[in-house]
């Protein structure tokens, strides 16, 4: 069965890094990613199931890995060779239990919650984070009976979504997909869960000015999550939800998903200044690039030095910058962070969230919220094109240039691969 596999090869990582200068995703041809005949992964235990991917998304962190741009921080948290792909909707190979405790029939569809925490690793007692449902913060992702791997898609034992050979998934990772939900909606549940986790963890209050830098998949899903959760009363309602987007189609999506202002990326600081009624400072004051006040919360969904510095320039004193996009090693001027006492926090994965309820705050699994939001918002519409696994170079180039090519989310379509046939890209 065809699989895409990433091997540990420093020369290949170096070559990918060079190729990526030409554009994101260009490392696919000469980098550490290879198309191989993959073996079906062995199930590590009785509480594991084999699932067959149907759609598997291409994430920004995947592109970073393929292009050799990922921080070396992750070296100890992955195990080679691994099959990428952690945004997955799949079918059960045989009947098996799911995270909700129910039994899913063979061929029923499931979405993978890819974090490999204490439960999946068979570690008892669980770490403090897993014990309280914060599986994304698990302290044991490099321990237990599995090889290191913070998620499925980064662990050599489990397989990953970019493979027709299947994935070994722990029952705590499997969520049954409702009958009425499309595969496209289902494949966006995982990134939507990331967005929901970022939004609910940001501490948004009623009346806040919230800015989102970047309107790729994550930026749009953060916007959608904020819009949806505030409209359903699950969280506070910001006064302004401003999104800076480079491309027109991204601005349209942001507006559909509840942005009160969807602007050209260069105009975002000006809009934040307007909504927060701030003044501007410095030589570029007329361009409103460094504000005296600013947004209460800024979500950086890009993760570059420029985007983080832009976020620090447009957040208010004692405001919060949430890094949703995965950063790497960066050269940053943090004077504004120090001087304005800004909180710079990361937002990774998911687990359990606190949401507003009729009788006070209640705890809900992030994936449960994500399923509900994906169905309500139709986030599957963001899946712009799918490719068979054999055409991975085209798929990754498309994903790397998604914004420029009018796309948002690119995914591998393995529905026919399992039957032994392939087809061209579907857009």
């Amino acid at each position, binding site marked *: 069965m065809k699989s895409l596999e990433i091997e540990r090869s420093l020369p290949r990582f170096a070559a990918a890094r060079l190729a990526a200068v030409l554009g994101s995703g260009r490392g696919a041809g000469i980098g550490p990613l290879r198309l191989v005949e993959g073996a079906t992964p062995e199930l590590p235990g009785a509480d594991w199931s084999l699932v067959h991917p149907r759609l598997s998304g291409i994430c920004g962190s995947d592109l970073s890995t393929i292009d050799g741009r990922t921080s070396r921080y992750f070296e100890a948290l992955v195990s080679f060779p691994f099959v990428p792909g952690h945004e997955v909707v799949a079918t059960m190979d045989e009947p098996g239990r799911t995270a909700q405790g129910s039994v899913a029939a063979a061929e029923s569809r499931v979405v993978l919650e890819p974090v490999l925490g204490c439960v999946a690793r068979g570690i008892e007692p669980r770490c403090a984070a897993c014990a309280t449902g914060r599986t994304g913060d698990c302290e044991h992702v490099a321990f237990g009976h599995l090889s290191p791997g913070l998620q499925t898609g980064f662990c050599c034992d489990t397989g990953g979504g970019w493979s027709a050979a299947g994935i070994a998934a722990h029952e705590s990772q499997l969520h049954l997909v409702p009958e009425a939900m499309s595969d496209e909606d289902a494949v966006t549940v995982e990134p939507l869960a990331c967005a929901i986790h970022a939004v609910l963890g940001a501490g948004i209050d009623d009346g806040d000015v919230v800015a989102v830098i970047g309107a790729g998949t994550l930026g749009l899903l953060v916007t959608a999550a904020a819009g949806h959760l505030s409209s359903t009363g699950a969280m506070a309602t910001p006064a302004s939800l401003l999104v800076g987007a480079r491309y027109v189609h991204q601005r349209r999506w942001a507006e559909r998903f509840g942005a009160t202002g969807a602007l050209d990326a260069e*105009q975002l600081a000006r809009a934040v200044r307007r909504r927060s009624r701030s003044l501007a400072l410095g030589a570029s004051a007329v361009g*409103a690039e460094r504000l005296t006040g600013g947004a209460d919360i800024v979500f950086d969904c890009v993760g570059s030095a420029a985007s983080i510095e832009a976020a620090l320039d447009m957040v208010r004193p004692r405001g919060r910058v949430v890094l949703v996009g995965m950063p790497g090693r960066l050269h940053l001027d943090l004077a504004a962070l120090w001087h304005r006492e800004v909180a710079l926090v990361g937002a990774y994965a998911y687990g359990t969230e606190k949401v507003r309820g009729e009788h006070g705050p209640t705890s809900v699994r992030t994936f449960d919220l994500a399923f509900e939001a994906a169905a309500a918002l139709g986030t599957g519409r963001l899946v712009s094109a799918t490719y068979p696994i054999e055409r991975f170079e085209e798929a990754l180039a498309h994903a790397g240039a998604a914004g420029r090519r009018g796309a948002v989310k690119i995914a591998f379509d393995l529905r026919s691969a399992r039957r032994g046939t392939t087809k061209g890209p579907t857009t």
Partner: protein
Amino acid sequence: MSRRPGFVLEVDRSTPPTLFWNGEGYGLERLPEGSRVIYAPEPIDALEDPIGAIRHALNNPYGDSAPLPSLLRAGMKLTICFDDISLPLPPMESPDIRQMVIEEVLEMAAAAGVDDVVLVAALALHRRMTEPELRHALGDRVYDAFAPHGLLTQHDAEDPENLLYIGQTDEGEDVEINKRAATSDLLVYVNINLVAMDGGHKSVATGLASYKSLRHHHNPQTMRHSRSFMDAPASELHTSNWRMGRLIAESGVKVFQIETTLNTDTFPSQFAFLQKREWEWNVRDRATFAASSAALAGAPTRYKRRLFHSIKAPHAMTSVQAGEVEAVHAITTANVWEQQGVEVEGQTDILTMGLPYICPYNVNSIMNPILVACLGLGYFFNLYRNKPLVREGGVLILKHPTPWEFDPAFHPSYIDFFEQVLAETTDPVLMHKQFEASYANDPWYIHLYRTGHAYHGVHPFYMWYWCAHALEHLGRVIIVGGDQKAVRRLGFSPASTLDDALEMARDVVGPSPTLTHLHNPPIMMADVR
């Protein structure tokens, strides 16, 4: 040869192509046979002795006002207010009319022993003038005598310490004006009445007012009911200003109004062909046109902008009158009409205009897309009396490059207005309700208005309200040669050529439309019968 009045030409086979302004440039367009072209009257002769005429006007006022010398006495508080950089257009050659008039007023004040004199540039919500602009308007002698001592000021509509609330009109309009002016023993206002809209009670009630006061007439409702705002009796804008002006007078503010009119001598001799009728161009005119248009076509925009904004018009004063506001203004308006009025028979299906590089709000700056709209749909569209040149449901075709470009120092709130407000709505009423207050009260815009050279935060809204009547009246607006994205953002249709625009217009007004071209500048006013 005696001065020729305005003229409406009917285009036939022998008619040469017609000059169209196109921002920082111009070109020739061949109009369909049967089209009409409206030409401005030739310039009225200048006053032979302008200084003598000014003295005469100050000594022989209209209405119930006493001569200026008799109103001046030692120990009094005198404030002289004057029109800002928005007038005249293009800026006139030195000496500027303001300099000539103010020097005479100061001579009389000095003779009477008045030593508490302050000059105030009546900015309303316009940008502050720069030192070179003030020097040009007032002359070095006046500038150097007043500015170093802080006695040359610019009205600050956001300075609560220097605003005085006068009261409310019968219609509930708040009247709040410059405190120094309002508490002076005499307020002398020096006008340049370039068009019929200028002057009258609008000088003080608008030029020296605060936002709190201005918002009562600078709004979509008022502008939609000003038909046109160049014709005071039919203008709700003026009716409101007149109510305010009368309240100001009743409150005890003594205004001595000085109004001046200009002729249509708009361009210096090297650009003389721009104010000639095309069939009268001589060999030199044709050569100048060909050489200059070729040079401009290849020149960088920055260079062209600098070139055109360096033009000083040879405008000459044709009349000066002083005294009581309403009596003075009636004569001024008649004089403006005498210079600019052109009788036009009937309306047209399509009205075409070439828009030049300048409007009242981009002197020494960029004509951004909002100002393009304002010049075309606000000013030029409203250059009529009785009824608009174009029929209701008709099409307006403008020619201008309409660059997506803004001056960040002069027009900071315009950038946000274009990016954020127009992206959401082009409806003046809706934007008035949803956005105006937040722009008007934005502390950063207020800061830039007060300390820099920025138009007030609310100003782009006013520019759009200026278009409100046209937006309601027209079936379609087409801009030829404009930046397509910018034109669409304005809610208009872009066209590459005039022929394309005419084809698009026929979709709206039918297959055999009538067409009229407003050959402006020089400025004219159409009296549509």
